[in-house]
């Protein structure tokens, strides 16, 4: 598949807009439909498309496995970290009110961070799942 010029060029053209759309969905989730999950999946789809068209090795060069694993945990840590921060500031777990100057500002900051954490974890898990499934072939073949 990596020989087909139409697919390669189409992928190169599409890659950036998909990421951009992912970012839009991520940060526009407060105002319209969207949020961390959807954005995470869209992000992941860009990298999966790249890996499908250019091959898994190229995909891994673009997005290495160890960074993938790190970000995968980081999303959850970010989410939990927001909760722990609010706990340290004297409120209950995940009460965002204390994070900002006013209650509403705190809620905004909290929701933004939390959604970002969700997006990070979801996108990286999806990429990791795809890598793991696509990679399975090779460990099967060497047997």
């Amino acid at each position, binding site marked *: 598949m990596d020989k087909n010029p139409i697919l390669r060029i189409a992928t190169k053209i599409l890659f950036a807009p998909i990421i951009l759309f992912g970012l839009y969905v991520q940060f526009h989730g407060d105002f*319209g439909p969207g949020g961390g999950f959807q954005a995470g999946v869209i992000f992941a789809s860009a990298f999966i498309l790249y890996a499908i068209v250019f091959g898994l090795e190229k995909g891994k060069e673009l997005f290495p496995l160890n960074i993938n694993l790190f970000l*995968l945990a980081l999303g*959850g840590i970010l989410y939990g970290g927001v909760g722990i921060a609010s706990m340290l500031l004297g409120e209950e777990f995940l009460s965002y009110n204390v994070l900002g100057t006013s209650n509403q500002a705190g809620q905004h900051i909290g929701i933004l961070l939390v959604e970002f954490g969700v997006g990070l974890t979801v996108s990286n898990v999806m990429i990791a799942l795809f890598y793991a499934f696509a990679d399975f072939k090779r460990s099967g073949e060497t047997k």
Partner: protein
Amino acid sequence: MISELIINAFLVSIMLGIGIALLKSRSVIYTVLLTSAYSLVAALMFISLDAVDVAFTEASVGAGISTILFLAAMAFLPREEEKNVTSQVFPAIVCLVLGGILIWCSYDLPQIGLASSPIHQHIAPEYIAGSRNDIGIPNIVTSVLASYRGYDTFGETIVVFTAGIAVLAILKNNKKEVKKLKSKKKVLDNG
């Protein structure tokens, strides 16, 4: 309002058709594609039921990523399902009992779209008011998801994380390494 219900009834009938096709199909790729179509129709149905966020997620997760995973897995799996040899009477009875109970209780379920039923009166109005006043975010689903029930979402992030780690741990084990490990271990042969 009738038109909405007709659209719903139409979509749900398509889903029923896909479901029956799934029962009959023996080819794996056909099954996977039908599942994807099923999710897509479900997403349409969610839109017509006002659940835009859910529709978005179902379309991207259910019809998108799930299908990619199914297809990626299918590359290594047999293409055809073998004919069942054993009897399917017992599972069929279980399903019929389940469906029977649900249909039996469906008359006591709130009528679809009735604004006076407790589900719409009890907590939901507080979320709608709170989203405007306490949180200040137009998308109520986001404010409930991330703030009111933020802990559920945290749990869900953890579920996704768990699945990711689990799949990595399950698929990444090389047979060779296990064998090396076994020989390294103190092997006490009884024979």
